């Protein structure tokens, strides 16, 4: 049975088994591949998306749980990389391999929405369950603080 939800501002309907994780619906059913598979057990954060504004791990979020909800993926964050977090990421040259970065950015954006003026320690706390094997944490930390500065203005 088809399940309907809003994806990046558009209403859509998907006909997959209701237990299918949102991650695979995005990637394989909808070919929206910016959201990444990293672990499948909510341990790495590469699949992070926003569900009704909250950051969630789409690899363990069954399709049945998102009926009627609003989903934002990295592709829906801005149409032109203009979000302050994306801008800060470019300015500080954060990504290396880049694979985890969609999830990192989605996590950072949701965090800054709740805490627009964070301390470095609060940034560390918010980001510490996302894995980056390239070791970009130092640059991400700086970029989040920079984005927060920019959003203040």
């Amino acid at each position, binding site marked *: 049975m088809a399940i309907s939800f809003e994806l990046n501002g558009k209403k859509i309907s998907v006909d*997959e*088994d209701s237990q299918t*994780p949102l991650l*695979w619906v995005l*990637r*394989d*059913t*909808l*070919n*929206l*591949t*910016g*959201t*990444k*598979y*990293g*672990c*499948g*057990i909510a*341990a*790495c954060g*590469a699949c992070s998306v926003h569900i009704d504004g909250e950051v969630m791990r789409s690899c363990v979020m069954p399709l049945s749980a998102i009926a009627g909800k609003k989903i934002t*993926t*990295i*592709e829906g*964050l*801005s149409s032109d*990389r203009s979000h302050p977090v*994306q801008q800060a*990421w*470019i300015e500080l*040259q*954060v*990504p*290396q*391999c*880049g*694979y*985890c*970065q*969609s999830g990192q*950015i989605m996590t950072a954006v949701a965090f800054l929405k709740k805490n627009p003026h964070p301390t470095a320690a609060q*940034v*560390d*706390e918010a*980001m*510490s*369950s*996302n*894995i*980056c*094997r*390239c*070791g*970009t*944490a*130092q*640059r*991400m*930390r700086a970029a989040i603080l920079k984005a927060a500065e920019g959003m203040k203005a």
Partner: protein
Amino acid sequence: MSAANTFSRRDLLKTVASAGAALVIAVEAPRNLATAAPMKPVANPLKAWVAIDQSGTVTLTYSKSEMGQGISTSLPMILAEELGVDWKDVQVKHASVDPVYGNQGTGGSGSITGLFTPLRKAGAAGRQMLITAAAARWNVSAESCTAKNGAVWRGSDKLMYGELVEAASQLPVPDLDKVQLKRLEEFEIIGKSLPRTDVPSKVDGSALFGLDMRAPGMVYAVVARCPVFGGKVRSYDATAAKAMKGVEDVFEIPAVAEAHSCGGVVVVARTTWIAMQARNKLKIDWDYGPALSESSETLRRQFRQIVDSNMKVILNQGDVASALAAAPASKRIECDYELPFQAHATMEPMNCTVHIEGDSARVWAPHQAPNMVQGVVARAAGLKPENVQVHTTFMGGGFGRRYQADFPTEAAQIAKRLKKPVQLVWSREDDMTHDFYRPASYHRMTGAVDASGNMTAWQHKYTSTPIAEWFMPNAAPESSELGCTLQMPYQSGGYRLEYTPAKSAVPRAWWRSVEASVVGFVMESFVDELAHSAGVDPLEFRLNALGDARLVKNPNEPDARPLDTARFKGVLQLCAEKANWGTPLPKGEGRGVAVHYSFNSYVANCAEVSVERGQVKVKRIVSAVDIGIPVNPDGIRAQVESAIVYGLTAALKSQITIENGRAVQTNFNKFTTLSMRETPLIEVHIVQSKAAPTGIGEPGLPPTAPALANAIFAATGKRVRRLPIQPGDLS
């Protein structure tokens, strides 16, 4: 949805040309697998490397795999410099596998080392051809023209490259050994921190990794592999799996010995998720084979038996036995070091997309050795290598794992049967439990110092599960393991190195910085132990033991670049200065330094730690690197930051242990990594050298764990000799 990642038949470059001379890289594919089409020795840089359109847009091709190390920026920078174009006009393009590019294998920190001069020559040859075309147009001598900013100039007259490129590309290619290269002082692009070309696509989800490839009608495949290393399928029942909606096929593929692929039962389905779910429903009777009894404990017992016994003597300089006998017990140290298997754990698990049609194949592979992929796919699918088109995608980390033939082989086996596009997906569990791990190793170190604080003896008895045994069966097992132990920079009365391999069924291969990650830790920890034993400051002790500037050759590779102790000392001193070496720290905190030479590059790291109730907090790491001419300084800093974090993870968090012949850690919940909270401030200082540039993807790693361990000793008096540091080790 978006059609951006649906692949279309890209034009393979038909032109034949190459400025890419044979590359010296530490990681070579096994010869029997590297059966890609032979290289064609012709050259036209304006066809192979450079495309210029009428509007002045310059598209530069990079021939190496982008796995986060920034090569898609630094290689084009070198071309652009000599070609004489504005960086703002440059776009970049990844080369498909083509003989014009020579070996496209990306590893051993070898891309800049190997391509710096060939790309400069290619760029300069292109510039010369454009000048020649302009001179002909103006009917003047080429000497009266100059080239700059994407145009050829004669006085105030100019012809844009876009107007000249068609004529220029028809000209004979100049002798690459005679083209005029810029002087270093003339560089306008090399040496600048330029923003990476791949970064914008990595903040909006548009960068395409291997797993992001999509084709009309494409299906997804997963493979059930025996959890025990070397095990095989005895029989299987696929009834339940096949009954699932969306499952298209279930079949067995054999192991391929030369690719080190496991074989197993393949499930093909409409989506990755369905394939994974159906795989769970397979009933497989495994023949586990002889590895079932292996564990980390059995391997450790074997290691200890080996170092207790007579071993093969590799080097024996001076008189170690007499020096040790002469040393009083208080000035003699004997201790054992041990390091575990490590998984690469790239964020993007292994995968490969293949479409076989008739007698040809197209492959999309996130791979470090695309030429090898061409060969292995051809072999597995029974095709001619030249009929296999290989496109290298962005890759979500490499670290050496993506140099392997197993996953492209499996993908080709599957695609051969399906006759439609198929994406082979490894789950995280597949990836972690069927990796080719960094070897486990064990080291018995014996050394002595004299009353004046000089090192008098250094003996290293070393055993490991050697990479060579897996990939180079005809080579000596130690040939993959020794690294800098063959180029001991510290002088003493005697140096003795012994090595004997241990037996293990655990697959092993090149992991970021390879053997340097092992010997760097052991050598730089042990020299620190000797310093403390001598009662001499560890920095001072190293500087003394390095002595006067000299070149230390590798006795097994006399033609390889020697270790230059002046550069070794140079990074050590720069690092110490920037880290405020010798200034006091609060109680419970400590500073430790380490320096290492790997991949022809020199890196020293200094760690500052605090230890409270047995818990280590790494506060700051200062790094100094000498890699010759720096091409993209911010890219260099990023690579050192990355290697340090990767090294800290291996020192403080991750390991692969073995029980019942299989990996215990199967996912990121057990194989843990350094979090942002645990990531220290990292400062990188780059020596402004004029030496030939060398690589930096790996060399920042080896001096990381020993700097940390030495800092922990300074803070607590407790010596770390086993990695990773376990809870309780310091309490």
